[in-house]
């Protein structure tokens, strides 16, 4: 039987979350002896993706081992729908086979100018990934529901957030005066700091974003939420400062068009982050990295610092290994429960029997059909004015996450516990109601996640945040040793792998 202890390792990487997997990718041409472990039987750790059955197993394991993963209070609901005779006559929607679903714990999308996209391109692993376009942003606007006599489709309860200048002009819901104010703001933030340095310096960005919009540009209040949604802020209105929101709105607008017309973000097919990290691990294996699942790090001792391989690592399977470096996260390296992380968010994943086609319009000629849409529910529209907004990210079956005629709704709100779950449930139900009777929830998963927003902890963000790559690069520099920092993630195609 082959054992891992036969080798002295240059680096042992514990955990296959995205950060660790990207490190493995970065080291994949270094010639280093890499051992990459995961204590679970699946890839991805807190960013994994599951079939329905695997989600069930994951729930059991998380709930039994409380404090050992950044998750709490996982719950799965299957729905028994009272069948009304009209629906029985036709074909009632039902769940497909377990493996027809890829339910992701990492449904974040990538802005097209994200450093991760650059890294996936320059490392050539993008060839094994398929990306779909993000579509529109929508704001829940219940007042439009009553006045609208149209057929039930979700869009009757939502307003589309204008994504560019043409959109602003074409928007029927915005008055001319508001349009002018909005354009003033958009023109202002599209100026680079070089163009107007004094202006940039004079601005007070510590105020809430809403106040900044009102006092500097007279942007009316009803446009604050749409603009906040472009920043993806998961904080309440009061807590969302201009210094937080402005650069992120800029990022949003600057991303549109850079990979093709009409979209500014992409989602990776089959589970987003989960798929990206698997591709990264595969690239590392191709380079000679050794992979072992169901094998965790139990204990690390670092006593013989003279030794070329100073770290002794005890694995969960009883083996003792030696390595130059060990890299992991608080959840994969420490036997104790890590210090409490900054944020807790409530999250949910729902399988719904509708394709929500009205939420996926192609808004620019020549643009790809979007596979994902983002819905924002301001707290006050959910009768909870003080709370942060709820975001729902809908994945169509084009993402490969679910069968045709169904969708996955990934929901999140940075309010923990039952209160957060109640907000999520309320938002999902409002979407379902707006879509009409053909939309029913077939299955749902609810959980609380611990982590950090916009930091290097477990990502809770709606879009991938580039600072994760900075931490990966730091580790890469340490482990790889004598390398040119500019060579980070820059590889040639391997023989036989490029398109001919």
């Amino acid at each position, binding site marked *: 039987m082959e054992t891992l202890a036969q080798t002295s390792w240059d680096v042992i990487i514990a955990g296959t979350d995205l950060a660790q997997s990207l490190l493995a990718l970065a080291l994949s041409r270094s010639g280093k002896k890499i051992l990459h472990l995961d204590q679970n039987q699946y890839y991805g750790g807190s960013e994994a993706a599951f079939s329905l059955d695997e989600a069930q197993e994951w729930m059991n394991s998380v709930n039994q081992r409380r404090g050992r993963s950044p998750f709490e209070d996982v719950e799965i609901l299957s729905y028994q729908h009272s069948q009304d005779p009209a629906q029985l006559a036709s074909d009632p929607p039902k769940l497909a086979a377990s493996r027809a679903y890829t339910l992701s714990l990492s449904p974040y999308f990538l802005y097209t100018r994200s450093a991760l996209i650059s890294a996936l391109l320059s490392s050539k692993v993008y060839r094994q990934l398929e990306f779909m376009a993000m579509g529109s942003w929508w704001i829940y606007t219940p007042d439009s529901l009553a006045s609208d006599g149209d057929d039930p489709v979700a869009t009757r309860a939502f307003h589309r957030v204008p994504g560019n200048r043409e959109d*602003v002009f074409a928007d029927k819901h915005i008055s001319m005066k508001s349009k002018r104010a909005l354009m003033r703001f958009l023109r202002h933030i599209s100026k680079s700091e070089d163009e107007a340095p004094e202006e940039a310096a004079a601005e007070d960005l510590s105020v809430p974003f809403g106040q900044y919009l009102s006092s500097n540009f007279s942007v009316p209040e009803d446009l604050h939420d749409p603009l906040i949604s472009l920043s993806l802020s998961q904080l309440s209105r009061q807590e969302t400062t201009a210094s937080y929101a402005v650069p992120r709105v800029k990022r949003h607008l600057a991303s549109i068009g850079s990979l093709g017309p009409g979209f500014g973000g992409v989602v990776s097919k089959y589970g987003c982050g989960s798929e990206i990290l698997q591709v990264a691990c595969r690239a590392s294996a191709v380079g000679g990295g050794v992979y072992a699942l169901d094998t965790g790090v139990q204990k690390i001792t670092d006593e013989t610092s003279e030794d070329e391989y100073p770290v002794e690592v005890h694995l969960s399977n009883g083996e003792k290994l030696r390595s130059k470096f060990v890299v992991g996260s608080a959840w994969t390296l420490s036997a104790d429960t890590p210090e409490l992380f900054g944020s807790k968010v409530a999250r949910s994943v729902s399988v719904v029997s509708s394709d929500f086609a009205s939420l996926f319009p192609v808004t620019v000629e020549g643009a790809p059909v979007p596979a994902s849409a983002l819905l924002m529910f301001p707290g006050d529209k959910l009768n909870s004015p003080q709370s942060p907004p709820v975001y729902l990210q809908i994945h169509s079956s084009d993402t490969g996450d679910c069968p*045709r005629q169904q969708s996955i709704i990934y929901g999140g709100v940075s309010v923990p516990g039952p209160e957060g779950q109640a907000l999520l449930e309320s938002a999902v139900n409002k979407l379902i109601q707006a879509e009409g009777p053909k939309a029913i929830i077939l299955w749902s998963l609810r959980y609380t996640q611990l982590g950090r927003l916009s930091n290097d902890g477990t990502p809770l963000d709606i879009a991938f945040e580039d600072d994760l790559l900075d931490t990966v690069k730091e580790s890469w520099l340490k482990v790889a040793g004598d390398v040119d920092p500019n060579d980070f993630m820059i590889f040639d195609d391997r023989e036989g792998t490029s398109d001919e």
Partner: protein
Amino acid sequence: MSESASGNAPKPSSSVKLVLLGEAAVGKSSLVLRFVNDDFQENKEPTIGAAFLTQKCSLPTRTIKFEIWDTAGQERFASLAPMYYRNAQAALVVYDVTKPSSLTKAKHWVAELQRQASPGIVIALVGNKLDLTNDGGDASSASPSAREPESAEGDEEGAGQEEGDAQDATPGDARKVSTREASTYAEEESLLFFETSAKTGTNVVDVFTAIANAIPESSLKTGKGPAAGQTGLGGRAADESRVNLGDRNTATAKEGCAC
């Protein structure tokens, strides 16, 4: 395999994702190397680097482009990722005819494929290293032991048994897995079955041709990209919605409202 140049009209071409499975050192990569480059390396190092190769296979009515995925060693500690199996339309499960434990392992992989892969996947069971047995070795001799399951029936099977047993006893013959044992198993599980030698080339092209023929027309998509499994029918064409990251450098299209 030669590209047939018959006729001027190009035949329809489809991509097929083929995954390679089997115990270490049974010759998985060597089989592919023989198929793709018509080459063989003695004492080949364990696979590093080659993880994705393509080769066209020309059939009378269409051209199949195999996208061959090697395991890159990830099978060693049971660490293959779901993306490895995802959308695979064909699998080559390889064992070594001189090593009985490798057939046991092959059976494990077949079970794993039936659990993990797309329901319609075409699986070929391949006993490699035929050159180490008395009936292998020579590429020019048609191997009687290589047959597809449907032909392995009746008297022939009995003959195979006898043959196999006899071979086991022959001095200098390293065969430890009889043709009959493996072909019976292949038949039970509805697998294609071949015995090959990557070293001499015996039956190697035949394996891939048989797989190409066994892939149902309905599961083939023309043009680029793997077929989308259960989401294949009645939907929007994939090309309408896919984003090509390779385009980024050329796409200078309209910027958003930052204009």
